[in-house]
């Protein structure tokens, strides 16, 4: 993702790098240099919590431990055709007075990145300027992957030890995480619920007026454990 999407590398980067393609090698070494530089100041922070949860049709209620009244309720959209999926379906009904759980998290690698990137751009270091932002965004994504793994462990579903990073990146594990603004839950306003529950301001992530995260190199998500979790689209255009 970093080399292809952000740095504009064409073709299979890993393969080309292994084949010692000069361009790939050059890009790799430049990014490595940038990574080393970034390691000195880039800070990766995370905040997360499990909440008790109940679903009611398309609504998802989250509760403090044992509470009657929900802390927050998300109203999701349901697919109008096909499997008629809705995120709330992935929470199991309470069994013997015991509720199911969802995990909510925010991670960020964006602290101070914008200023440094702006400065680099200002100084004419377009590569660095662009590279830094790309690196931060990808770092946040990676951190989300790491945290999600931890969350699965806390749920008692550790990834099998033989699982590779690449397999992990393609989500071959139990449960899924969903971020607002993506097809299964396109409403960015719903971010407000996460902010109410987690107070991610503490790790330096604010919501903009448009409910986008600032700094940009941040990821927020709801994680479900249900084995039937799948990525789907509610067809935002219809609403």
């Amino acid at each position, binding site marked *: 993702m970093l080399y292809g999407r952000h740095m504009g590398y064409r073709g299979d980067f890993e393969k080309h790098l292994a084949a010692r393609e000069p361009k790939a090698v050059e890009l790799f070494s430049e990014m490595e240099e940038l990574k080393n530089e970034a390691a000195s100041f*880039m800070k990766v922070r995370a*905040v997360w919590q499990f909440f008790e949860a109940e679903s009611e049709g398309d609504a998802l209620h989250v509760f403090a*431990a044992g509470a009657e009244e929900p802390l927050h309720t998300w109203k999701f959209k349901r697919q109008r055709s096909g499997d008629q999926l809705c995120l709330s379906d992935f929470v199991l009904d309470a069994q013997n007075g015991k509720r199911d759980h969802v995990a909510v998290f925010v991670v960020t690698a964006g602290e101070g990145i914008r200023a440094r990137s702006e400065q680099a751009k200002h100084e004419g270091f377009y590569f660095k300027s662009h590279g830094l932002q790309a690196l931060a965004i990808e770092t946040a994504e990676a951190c989300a992957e790491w945290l999600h793994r931890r969350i699965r462990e806390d749920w008692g*579903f550790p990834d099998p030890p033989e699982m590779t990073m690449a397999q992990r990146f393609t989500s071959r594990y139990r449960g899924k995480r969903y971020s607002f603004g993506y097809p299964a839950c396109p409403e960015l306003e719903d971010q407000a619920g996460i902010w109410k529950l987690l107070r991610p301001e503490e790790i330096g992530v604010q919501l903009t007026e448009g409910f986008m995260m600032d700094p940009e190199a941040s990821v927020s998500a709801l994680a479900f454990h249900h084995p039937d979790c799948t990525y789907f689209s509610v067809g935002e255009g219809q*609403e």
Partner: protein
Amino acid sequence: MRDLKQSETALRELLAERILVLDGAMGTMLQQRDLTAKDFGGPALEGCNENLVRTRPDVVLDIHRKYFEAGADIVETDSFGGTPLVLGEYGLQADALELNKRAAALARQAAEEYSTPGKPRFVAGSMGPTTKAITVTGGVTFEGLLDSYYVQAKGLIEGGCDLLLVETCQDTRNIKAGVLAIQKLSREIGMRVPYLISVTIEPMGTMLAGQTVEAMWASLRHTRPLAFGMNCATGPEFMTDHIRTLSSVTGEFVSCYPNAGLPDEEGKYLETPTSLAAQLEKFVNHGWLNLVGGCCGTTEKHIRAIAQMVDGKKPRVRPQEAHRAIYSGIETIEADDSTRPLLVGERTNVIGSRLFKNLVAEEKWEEATEIARRQVKGGAQVLDVCLQSTERDEKKDIPEFYEKLIRKIKAPVMIDTTDPAAVRLALTYCQGKAIINSINLEDGEEKFEKIVPIAHDFGAAVVVGCIDEDAVQAQAFTRERKLGIAKRSYDLLTKKYGIAAEDIIFDPLVFPCATGDENYIGGAVETMEGIRLIKAALPDTRTILGISNVSFGLPAGAREAVNSVFLFYCTKAGLDLAIVNTEKLDRFASIPEHERRLAENLLFQHVPKDVKADHPQAELLRGAPDDWRQQSKEQKAAINQFHIAAIAEHFRSSNKKEKGKGEELPLDERLGNYIIQGTRDGLVEDLEKKRAEGVAPLDIINGPLMDGMAEVGRLFNANELIVAEVLQSAEAMKAAVSHLEQYMEKAETAKRGKVVLATVKGDVHDIGKNLVEIILKNNGFDVVNLGIKVPPEELIKAYQAHRPDAIGLSGLLVKSAQQMVTTASDLKDAGIDVPLLVGGAALSAKFTQQKIAPNYSGAVCYAKDAMTGLRLMNELMDPATRGRVVSEHTISGNGVSVTTTVKVAAKPSVLHSPKVRRELPIPEVATLERKVRLVPDLREV
């Protein structure tokens, strides 16, 4: 003959009150009658509809009646081809007057039958474009055309028309001839003949002879017609943008009577009465129209539908026209704050250019006009043309030169002569709004009297020199006299001679500052201050200077520097137009600091600071006051001499270095300088040198060339580069990139996506868009760059041809932001909803979200710079992020504070998806506590 004053008053009152309805096609209705050769008056006359008023008046009368019955307020006479010029093709030229009279009388008869006090009916005399578009086809002289139109106008008015309709115009010179003919008639009958000007815009977006509707308006607004409008051509759907433009610029009424769509392969018009009325209703609802009807392919059924549609609808309210100083050739250019100073090319002048003079003397018109083209290519936005000399007959040269000139350049012409007959002759060749250079009060009002009527006839702006009858010093030297003469000229011209303030361009005069002539010392300061005073006192007028005069007497290198510095300060003082040699204009920013100071000292008559102790006039120089006006005669002379000597000395000694100057710089800096200076001399050679060093083409672009571009941006923001110079920089960049492109790898895999880029209509700024293009292209996108001034319909066409993944709109000017709104809305109407990326200096994220996005059905993304544009495109092409980007930027989606109103089709019936199991054990979790963590090492992840 009608009381035309009464007709005009009645029409104006009605037009302000409601939307009036014109009739439909005459030809289409005649075709339906299956007339035979006999009906036309014999086989030789078959197809001559105009002759039917004589042979089958019953048929013509019946058609008029049908249209009135259908609800038309105005019918057109059966005289579209009724000029002697066209009738001549049937041998009927001698009957022109009679045929037009009869045509008018027939329509008059029908109008009288249907007129009621509540719904008076009018007759409009139809005057078609003739069979000659003078600029395009030739075959007729301007005066011949004028005479032909005159005969027709006379017949129509004598036969009882209320107004005339100069319609289906394809060439503004034809219109000018037609309007002059009508004005001639008005003078003769002692009544103003009301008329409409209705033009035909071809599918390519301009009239046949090249002007856009806005350029046409700028060229003809002085004629003050009852209405400007459009007819025929494409049918209503392609008229949208042009009608909107016309409606927004003109203070006159606006008319529109389109064809019933575009004809199909069999020549059938496809719009039904209902569909045509529905399309016109859009225009009406936008408040764009005062007068509406039909052209080819329409019948009384169309007119009935249109009349019903406009019933009760509000007519367009005429806006107040601003004091905009717009000049035009085929293209328009406006003298306003965002374009100052307009550069006027000076080399097509037999007095100022020996080369041009010789070419004219040898009658080498091709080469002579080539100089004009070069000036325009070199950045001239207006072209000064002077053919007046004591050695040749200017009036013989004008037809030869202008006939070629108007085919080579699109820029407005400044006609530089003192002979009124020559001015008039030259103007008959100009489609656009030209500038006359110049008039003054040297011989009292004589020049005003002779030239101003010509300016009125053709709608030219005039340069007014600050010169009066003063016996001692006719040419105003001091700032006060410049202002005094300007004010006096202004009062005379606006009050007595009826010239609009914005059509006056004052020349405060430039005096040489380095000839040693004591009378001219301080002249540069006086000129700058004169501009300031005139602009403050008469803000609607414009100013012009012949810049190079200031440096007369200095060595060549020094002249260029002094000229550039002088232009810079004059522009700061408010100068609107500058006559310069665009090919030899140094950029202010590129003049070395030291040389800049030398020029400033000379121009401002600064008291020297670094006088050596043993300087013979040291004492005199040191004690002088700062304001040159307070310096003693001796001080003035000494200071002037000091600075002349300093600058002349500097350039004499640096002259030899001059040539090698560039090569001494390091290669990278030289490459950047090509961009900063907007020059291409040596560029390719240096690019090759850089490549020879083994540097990849892309790295050359991203390295030294982009650095140069960044510097251009910085200089532009610091007001040290003017718009024209920035455009040259962009061109140098383009040249460099296109040279390097041949060495760049073609994308080995499929392109990542396709983008259509355009600078919006009305905006000429290429630079931002080109940067985006460069960056996108170098990142694997397929970019279709439509260039500048791209109207919405061209974008729609490009969309259909290229099917891009996104459209990028660029624009620098404030009005471009508004244009993006209209463009977005037109794209939406055309059913386009691919993401729109918008960017430009006057745009903001807020404007994008609040003004543009609501007018578009898809996502509208604000790209604050080229990198953002790239990021957005990358995200849009990546399925993982596309949904997010689209929804964040779509007003009807999410992420913006606009409520969604689209109705949900059907509520899903289920409360739980059957695909998700419900009977699974609930796993335990370790803890319900909130966790906050700083992830210590990146590599851990």
